[in-house]
């Protein structure tokens, strides 16, 4: 198993910490993991991406140039990275901010209204975790349980009050993915 996930969007969507959560949970499951961020010069609102690799074998190259999964949190990210996804890969997109369907015919695709879900939970910054919940559900790369537990490790103690919201986000994402069923690229 090797999942090379690219999470892409802009700052403030919680992308980097979501990627970290995935890595952490993977490590706790005994998998090999790596996490690589990349962001623009803006402190807030600029691009924020991160690449997470989760694998049962040692990771030679942690760089993700051809992701197995793209989690696109806004339109520019989808536009920039859609073509790089591996054939047969997965595209999860934030349907709150992306109004068009991905064009790739050879990838599995699922849209999740992450902003709406996050706002309904009461914290826009958990949007990316909604997507992560969906990813875990679809990919089964790690268990949802590991992710839920890893929150305590990833969030610093003074942020632990945010754990419930984040758990909710993961769970909601997973639920939506479960209920939606995956849009299969071949027939969407």
């Amino acid at each position, binding site marked *: 198993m090797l999942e090379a996930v690219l999470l892409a969007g802009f700052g403030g969507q919680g992308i980097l910490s979501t990627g*970290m959560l995935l890595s*952490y949970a993977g490590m706790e499951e005994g998998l090999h*993991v790596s996490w690589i*961020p990349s962001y623009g010069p803006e402190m807030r609102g600029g691009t924020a991406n991160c690449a997470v690799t989760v694998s049962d074998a040692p990771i030679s*190259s942690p760089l993700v*140039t051809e992701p197995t999964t793209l989690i696109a949190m806004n339109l520019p990210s989808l536009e920039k990275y859609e073509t790089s996804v591996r054939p047969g890969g997965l595209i999860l997109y934030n349907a709150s901010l992306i109004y068009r369907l991905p064009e790739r015919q050879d990838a599995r695709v699922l849209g999740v209204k992450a902003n709406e879900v996050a706002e309904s939970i009461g914290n826009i910054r958990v949007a990316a975790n909604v997507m992560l919940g969906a990813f875990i559900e679809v990919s089964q790369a790690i268990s949802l349980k590991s992710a839920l537990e890893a929150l305590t490790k990833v969030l610093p103690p003074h942020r632990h009050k945010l754990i419930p919201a984040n758990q909710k986000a993961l769970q909601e994402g997973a639920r939506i993915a479960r209920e939606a069923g995956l849009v299969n690229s071949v027939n969407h």
Partner: protein
Amino acid sequence: MERVLMKGNEAFGEGAVRAGCRHFFGYPITPQSELPHYLARRLPEVGGLYLQAESEVAAINMVYGAAAAGARVMTSSSSPGISLMQEGISYIACAELPCVVVNIMRGGPGLGNIAPSQADYFQAVKGGGHGDYRLPVLAPASIQEIIDLIVLAFDLADKYRNPVMVVGDGILGQMMEPVELGPAPEVTPPPKPWATTGTLGRKSRNVVNSLYIEPEELEKVNLRLQAKYKQVEQEEKRWEEYRADDAQVIIVAFGMVARIAKAVVDSMRMAGIPVGLIRPVTLYPFPDKPLAASASGAAKAFLVVEMNAGQMLEDVKLAVCGRKPVHFYGRTGGMVTSVAEVEGKVRDIWEGLK
């Protein structure tokens, strides 16, 4: 042993603390910021000092003072900031003070950008400052290796009374991987009877200096430095070979790029192409021996891959010395080579060999 997920930049900091470094002077710059952030928190915990300097020029000169006073001391920066340190590094090298300088290289030249790069290779290994001096330069390729090499860096600095540089790029600095810290190593820096601590009863005064107005004297200093560098070249070359024994195409790459190259080696081997990797761990002294050996052995061609326009390439050519063709593939400006690109390049070379 507990595995913890750690950022590269933090690993530099924790590695330094484990090496007994208690003084850090620096000036903020992306993409190495997590290193000072980490140490600003961590050093006071162990009775150490994090001091933010007013500039990189000041930082390296604070390092000079702290090293003169006998401390294990470190600074870190990224490309433009390291350029500003060149005068100071030359002074420290001439005054023969031990210290560690970390350069998390970013896209250049100029302000460039904050994306990963290896374009300060020349500056690091040939000496971007004035005069005939050299720095041992270490290039870790994983977070775990950062922890290990930073301890080595301090040891080499003390052993040779010379600044040591550790280079990474923005990816290495900001990525996270699990590391096993293990018990802290025993650290016993050598005594420093030359340190300017105040005489405190010592009979003779200590003077830390790099001025030798008589050419005869300065030449003596230079001969001593050159002898030291010769020793470094004899004792400190370090490299990793990966499936290189029987390889007909040898990729040469350092740091993060070597990780990519490893993936290429594996995929090419699966495709039946005998590719191997030689990864310099020390950029200076440059591990020319394994390259020369390959050049006289199984290797039919070399491929140097760098995130620059071809800098280490020159050292590889000097080592191979015309015996086998040396190819180059590089990306610049913060672009990162993909596995597929390097595979393509290897295939081309392989076709050409047939």
